[in-house]
């Protein structure tokens, strides 16, 4: 008898156990519900691609490769968005260049220097940066920071004009408090918490036996960090930086207020510029026809860029986490 049951149980549907064959209806319904909720993520992502590209199709078809041209002039029906792409890259890079050293510094401070009971309040305070809403950063940026920065930028620019690289980056005669640099700086404040917390997670996984080994060889704390913590966390920190970059590229409202709204390509960081999310946010309400399609298309490009960066970043993070566990 028992042998027959065993043989049959290899064929699940024809099992000799009538009780085991069918799961109750509610149980199966719940499983389906959970599956549907999980699939919703994929459905939303696919729908985003389809619906926005459909809305942007008239822009793609009228402009062709001209979508990447440097000629944004809605009045003359010219919709090349190169200046916006440039602005997105420049502001995101400024943000990363400022935020990453600071974030890694805080992450090391939290994990390697301060005692654990101090680490918690420091984390809370850094996380407060993320609790301040984007629009409040923008409000502060445009009403308080920009007027003040205007003077500083002006004196820096007049000081460095004509000097080789410095004049190229910080010179120019179209100086404004609302500029690429202000936008990048405020983005840097906004991405610091996420880069810090991701780097901290990675740094914290350094095996303490390796650290003690370095100390036993007489290393100072900094030498230990350079020789043990850094090689261990490099990959994960790169992932964190990429995620910060993606965040900086897509952050909208604060930038829309402080970037200066001027679609030009210039090396002068203290000049007003534009980027893709800010362009969409500021111009969408007054747009129609191909203009609106162009802004939708800008959204599609932005979505593509951020998805690519996020996929790479998550891949890097996952790989370095696997390696950290394996080591």
């Amino acid at each position, binding site marked *: 008898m028992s042998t027959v049951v065993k043989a049959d149980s290899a064929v699940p549907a024809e099992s000799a156990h009538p009780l085991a064959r069918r799961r109750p209806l509610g149980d199966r319904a*719940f499983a389906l519900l959970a599956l549907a909720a999980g699939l919703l993520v994929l459905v939303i992502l696919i729908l985003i691609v389809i619906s926005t590209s459909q809305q942007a199709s008239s822009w793609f078809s009228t402009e062709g490769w001209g979508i990447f041209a440097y000629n944004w002039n809605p009045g003359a029906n010219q919709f090349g968005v190169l200046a916006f792409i440039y602005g997105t890259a420049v502001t995101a890079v400024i943000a990363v260049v400022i935020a990453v050293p600071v974030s890694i510094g805080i992450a090391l401070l939290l994990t390697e220097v301060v005692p654990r009971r101090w680490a918690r309040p420091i984390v809370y305070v850094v996380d407060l940066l993320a609790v301040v809403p984007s629009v*409040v950063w923008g409000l502060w940026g445009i009403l308080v920071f920009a007027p003040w920065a205007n003077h500083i930028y002006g004196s820096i620019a007049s000081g460095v004009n004509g000097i080789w690289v410095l004049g190229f980056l910080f010179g120019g005669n179209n100086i404004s408090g609302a500029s690429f640099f202000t936008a990048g700086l405020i983005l840097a404040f906004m991405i610091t918490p996420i880069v810090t917390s991701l780097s901290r997670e990675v740094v914290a996984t350094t095996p303490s036996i390796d650290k003690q080994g370095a100390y036993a060889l007489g290393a100072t704390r900094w030498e230990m960090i350079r020789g043990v913590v850094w090689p261990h966390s490099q990959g994960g920190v790169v992932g964190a930086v990429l995620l910060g970059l993606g965040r900086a590229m897509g952050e909208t409202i604060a930038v829309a207020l402080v970037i200066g709204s001027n679609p030009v390509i210039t090396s002068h960081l203290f000049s007003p510029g534009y980027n893709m999310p800010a362009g969409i946010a500021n111009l969408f309400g007054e747009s129609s026809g191909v203009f609106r399609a162009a802004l939708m298309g800008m959204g599609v490009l932005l979505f593509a860029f951020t998805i690519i960066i996020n996929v790479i970043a998550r891949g890097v993070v996952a790989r370095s986490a696997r390696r950290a566990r394996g080591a």
Partner: protein
Amino acid sequence: MAVTSQPQAEPQKADLREPPSWRRTKNQIMTVLMVVAFALTMIPLGFVLVTVIAKGASVISWSFLTSSIPPNVLPANVGGMGPAIAGTLVITALATVIAVPLGILGAIYINEYGGKGILARVIGFMSDVMTGVPSIIMGLFIFTLWTLHFQYSGLGGAFALACLMLPIVIRSSEEMLKLVPDSLRQGAYALGATKARVTMTVVLPAALGGIVSGALLAVARAAGETAPLLFTIGIVTSVNWNVFSGANTSLPSQIFLNASQPYTGAQARGWGAALTLIVIAFIFMISARLVTARYARYSS
């Protein structure tokens, strides 16, 4: 024992540390730089909070919190942000009602049903990727799918915010479900419970504290978002409690509009709205911490 060890502690300890050298100086410089990095982030944070509190507190009063929004040219003591507060509350609440159950169910799929299967891994990875999708894209998405067909309404805004919250809720809930020990599940199975019952009555309650805390953080994030609402809710100047029809407004949208106004009255109302918004976000964040401290049974 204590007596014999006494004399051994007596001899003067030799100072085995190296004499001051470049290596130690460098170590100290780097330590100082790490502290400086922390101090640097405190400067903008302090500035923003102090400015918002100083400028916002002078505007806020009971009538500011309840009056309707006046024309921008009027001075700061006229009108208020009542419609924006009402809009933020109902839109965020509706977004929470949509996103949190779906997010928890998604997390249940990934952790309880999908296991190590390819689909669960893809969904988990895509949730991570989706947290990186810019919020303005969610606004454009709901605009094309909903607002173009059904006009401006709070519901559209709630959909856009829900899209933003969904992956955050999935990821935080999944982390919490992972922490529930397998022995609990096996105990329930041994009593003959079905998988759905085990999940709903054993696993979920055990992880509830952490899940609620994660959801509250997602709510705090959503309440401060402007971009998804720009193209989906429109704008009104009087209170619209009906979230399902008619244009609406929100605190972030009003701050965004008022920030680019030249009138000092409008700017002052913007600061008042900013303070209100930050207070709301803080309340959610602090309740998340309290829930974690009080109710989370398993923590990472």
